[in-house]
C-alpha cells in the first residue's frame, strides 16, 4: 500500500481504465484532466516499459506505451497474462486490472 500522504496516478488522473483488446491482449488507459497533469506524470518517468512489466509481472518486450498528447492520455498495451476465459483467467473482460496502475505512487 502506498503511504497515506503519497499521491498516486489515480489521484491525479480523471480516469484509469482497463479492458481486453481482443482475447489475447490487455490495454490500459490513463486519462488526465489537463496538459499539466499529463506532462507531470510523463516527466516523472513512473510509467515505463520496465515499471509496467514489473507492476503486471509481464515481459517488458511485450509492453507498448502510447502517448496521446492531444487527448492527454497515456495508453499501455501488453499480452494478457492468460487467454481470455482460460481456466486460470481471473477477469473475463480485464475490467478490474486498472488498480495496480492507479495505485502506482508518484515521486514526491
Amino acid at each position, binding site marked *: *500500500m502506498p503511504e497515506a500522504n503519497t499521491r498516486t496516478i489515480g489521484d491525479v488522473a480523471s480516469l484509469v481504465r482497463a479492458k481486453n483488446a481482443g482475447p*489475447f491482449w490487455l490495454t490500459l488507459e490513463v486519462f488526465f484532466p489537463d496538459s499539466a497533469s499529463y506532462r507531470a506524470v510523463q516527466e516523472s518517468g513512473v510509467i515505463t516499459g520496465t515499471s509496467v512489466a514489473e507492476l503486471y509481472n509481464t515481459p517488458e518486450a511485450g509492453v507498448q506505451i*502510447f502517448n*496521446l498528447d492531444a*487527448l492527454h492520455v497515456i495508453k499501455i498495451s501488453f499480452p494478457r497474462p492468460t487467454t*481470455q476465459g482460460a*481456466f486460470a483467467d481471473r477477469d473475463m473482460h480485464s475490467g478490474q486490472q486498472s488498480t495496480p496502475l492507479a495505485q502506482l505512487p508518484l515521486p514526491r
Partner: protein
Amino acid sequence: MNQTGTAKVLVPTGMLGAGFDPSTVDRGIALGADVIAVDGGSTDSGPHYLGQAVAKTAAAAVARDLDVLVRAAKRAGIPLIVGSCGTSGTDTGVDWIAEMVRSISNDIDETVTVARIYSEQDTEAVAQYVRSGRVHPLPPAGELDEATARRCSHIVGLMGHEPIADAVLRGADVVLAGRATDTAVLSAVPLLRGCPPGPVWHSSKIAECGGLCTTTPLRGGVLVSIDPDGFTIEPLDPDIACTPQSVAAHMLYENVDPFRMREPAGTVDARGATYVALDERRVRVEGSQFIPADVHTVKLEGSGVTGYETLSLVGIRDPEILDAIEIWSKTFDTRLAARVSALLNLDPSQYDLVTRYYGWNAVLGSLDPDTTTPPREVGVVLRVRAHDQATATAIAKIANPMMLHLPLPGMSHLPSYAFLTSPAELERGPVYEFLLQHAVDVEDPTELFRTEIEVINHA
C-alpha cells in the same frame, strides 16, 4: 448504387439487443441515412459462445431491436446490415437471426430479400491451410499446428466489407453476416458509393459501438456522414453531443494500438487525423488514411473444449478464520490433493483445480498492491476441470466436507461455513478456450464466405 462519393450510415446501437429509442432511428432516417448498420456480436464475453455456437444476447431483446430496424429500413428503402449474428457469427447464429427476420416480414406483410452470409470454417479445411503455409500467427501467438485447428469446436473467419457489399449489390434488403469485422459492417455501403477508404474505415471504427463515442453513451446511436474530404459524426439523439474528445477517445477503445488497425484489405491509419467541433454536438474528422495490404488476409477465431468443469461456492465470515485465511487456504489445498489422490487415484496432473477467494486477492492475485487490509468476508469459489464431468464433480464432492468444516490447525471445534446452494456442486458442462490468434492469406476476399439469398414473399 450511386457513385456519389458520399454516404450516411445510421448506427442505432453498439450491439443488437442492447435496446434504443425508436425515435432515434426515425431521426437518422430523416437526416438522410443510406444504410442502417449494426453489430450483433463480439468475442468480449469469452470463448463459450463461439465454442457452443450460442448467443449471449436474449432472443426477446434481439427480436425487439430487429423489429424496429427492419420496419425502419423497409419504410426508408435502405438496406439493413447486421454483422456477427448471434454473438460469435457461427452459422447457427446467422440462422437464428434469419428466422427472426422471417417472422418480422410476416408481421409487417412485406416482401423482404434477405442475404445470409456464412463465415464458419471447416476445421479440416483450416488444417489444410496450415499445411499449405497460408496461416500466419498474430501477436502474441506462435505458429498454428494442424492439431490445434482440429481441436476447435467452431472456427469463424472475420469477413471484410466485400461479401457484404456483394449482397447489397444483389438486391438484399437485409444482410445477415456471420463473423465480420465491426468496421466492415459499417463500411460496405459507403465503399460501394465511392467514398474514400480512409474516412470510411476510420469513421466505422469510431461509430461501431454506437453511442460510446458520444458524451452520453446510453442514449442511442450515431449518424456518420462521409464525403470525399472526410466525415462528420453526430448523435442520433438531438439532446446529446459528440465532442472532439469523445470521438478521438473512442479510437483507444479495446484496441492495442490507438492509431492503426488492420482490416482484411489493409490498415487504417489515423495518425494524421484532425478532430474539430462543427458546433456543440457534431464533430468533423479529416486526414484519415487507409493503406491497402499486399495480401488480403482473413483473421480466424476458434474455440475448443478443454474439459468439463464443476464449481462450488462457500462463504466465510468468521473473523478467526479470516485472520488466518492464507494458512486456511494452504491447508485446504494440501488436504484436498491428498484426499483426491487417496480416493480417486488421480494425481494433480490429471485434473485442474483453482480456488479463488473473493474478498482476498481473487481478482488481482499476486498483482494486488494492497497486501495488508484484512478481508471482512470471503467467498470461496472452487473450480475443478477434468476430462469428464463425473470426475470434476467427484473431486468437488471430495472437497465438499472441507469447504463445509475445515478448521484451522490446532482448532478444538469444527466450524461450519456458508454454502450458497444445494447441491453445492454446480456442473458447468464443457468449457472452452480461444485457440486461434491467426490469419489466413486469401486471393479472393470472398472465398471463405458463402452467401444465400432468400426472398420472403408477401406481395
